[in-house]
């Protein structure tokens, strides 16, 4: 957060509530190190989301707004962490060794996270069909056999998952 932002509502919010938020997070997580990171990320997320930045000046209860965003930041953090562990586990399971540079790894994890986020909330078969099609390159007939459904169902699943992803991509919620 650059110093030039001194008089903005966000800067005021930061100086008035950052300490409180960090304390709240520390009580929640029991770890001051993690709390400091989460508090920072919470403000960063508000800063980078135009719709939030606009809201700040109109807030009646800034702390409840902050804790709402902080909860989302925390949920993302835990899910990202779980995904990274799952990714490392998956790498170990591959029959052939996979070589990935740190930059590639960061990009892959970020993309995986986005894909995982997008598929959240879809039915199991729908997301499974979508992944088998795109990540394993299976034909609809093969996917149908794996999932025990008809080929026309597979086509419907792919359309449904794609529509879901497209809607999310166009809305870009926080």
């Amino acid at each position: 957060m650059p110093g030039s932002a001194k008089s903005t509502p966000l800067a005021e919010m930061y100086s008035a509530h950052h300490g409180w938020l960090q304390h709240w997070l520390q009580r929640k997580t029991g770890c001051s190190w993690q709390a400091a990171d989460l508090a920072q990320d919470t403000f960063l997320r508000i800063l980078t989301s135009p719709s939030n930045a606009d809201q700040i000046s109109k807030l009646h209860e800034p702390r409840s707004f902050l804790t709402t965003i902080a909860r989302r930041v925390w949920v993302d953090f835990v899910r990202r962490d779980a995904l990274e562990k799952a990714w490392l586990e998956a790498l170990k399971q591959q029959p052939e060794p996979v070589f990935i540079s740190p930059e590639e790894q960061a990009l892959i994890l970020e993309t995986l996270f986005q894909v995982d986020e997008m598929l959240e909330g879809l039915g199991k078969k729908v997301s499974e069909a979508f992944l088998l099609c795109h990540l394993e390159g299976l034909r609809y007939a093969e996917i149908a056999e794996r999932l025990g459904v008809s080929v026309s169902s597979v086509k419907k699943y792919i359309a449904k998952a794609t529509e879901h992803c497209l809607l999310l991509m166009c809305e870009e919620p926080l």
Partner: protein
Amino acid sequence: MSDTRVARKDILRSAARWYALLCSEEVTEQQKHAHEAWLAEDPAHAKAWQQVEKLRQQLQVIPGAPSLDALQIKQRQGYSRRAVLRSFTLLAAGSVLGSLAWQQAPVESWMASHRTARGERREYTLADGTQLVLNTATALDVVETSTTRLIRLYAGEIFIRTGQGAKGVAAAEALQVHTEQGTVVPLGTAFTVRKQGTFTQVTVLEDEVELIPQSAGGKTQRLVAGEQAQMSSRSVEVATASAQADSWTRGLLVAVDWPLSRLVAELSRYRTGMLRCDPAIAGLRVSGAFPIDDTDRALQAIANALPVSVDRLTHYWVTIKAIG
């Protein structure tokens, strides 16, 4: 306003249906033409289709098999947003992790955070004479009070030789290194700490250090000179340290009978861009001292020593392949 929103949603739905049709192995030429006609019909259709392409590109970034496995592993573990949020609400005050001594320590001054770029190396001396060397792509904070020094290592690797005063006298309070996985307490010593994904690797060069994983219920593990350990947040795995684990502080990477893949992975830490090794030659054994300040020279040395060639698509995209 809401009318256009509904219309836009409808167009996205159509785009998704077209996409599902085109992905099918049974798509006909006629259907492909119909799709092209649909695209030409309305600029809004073409715009929606751009989103489809964007989604497709995103999916091409991730390697198929391990990504599919990773997503499936995570799904099995049940980290849905709702489940995670519920666990957050249930977290009671301070009950999750044991509180470490430094957490209560008054912070008297924050130094600016210390960072090195990829391929860069830097040295610092702290107020008590502790020598600190940052390896490539490292980020940390130093929190100094009048009596204690806390180093928070976020990424990368550091070498530490503790100052004179540290030995013996309240060593545990004098200097600590904290990572996401736990705490490293030197007992008058020289050692290295490296963040590696979900692990912290600690190598002891002189004397001893104590490791305290974050969530091991206060259990500690002592390491002596010549030992190396992988610390997760729950446990510590001890092994013999590789020879010259601190050679990077002198600008060298020393490999002793390493598979080529390991050497390449280590060298890639010091380079920007992609450096990969063809799986067919990943298992070749290699020994030697390689300059990390000039990785191009290191790659040349590998090509001289092994039946491999260094294939440069660009400076940022280098693959090591078998000759022929």
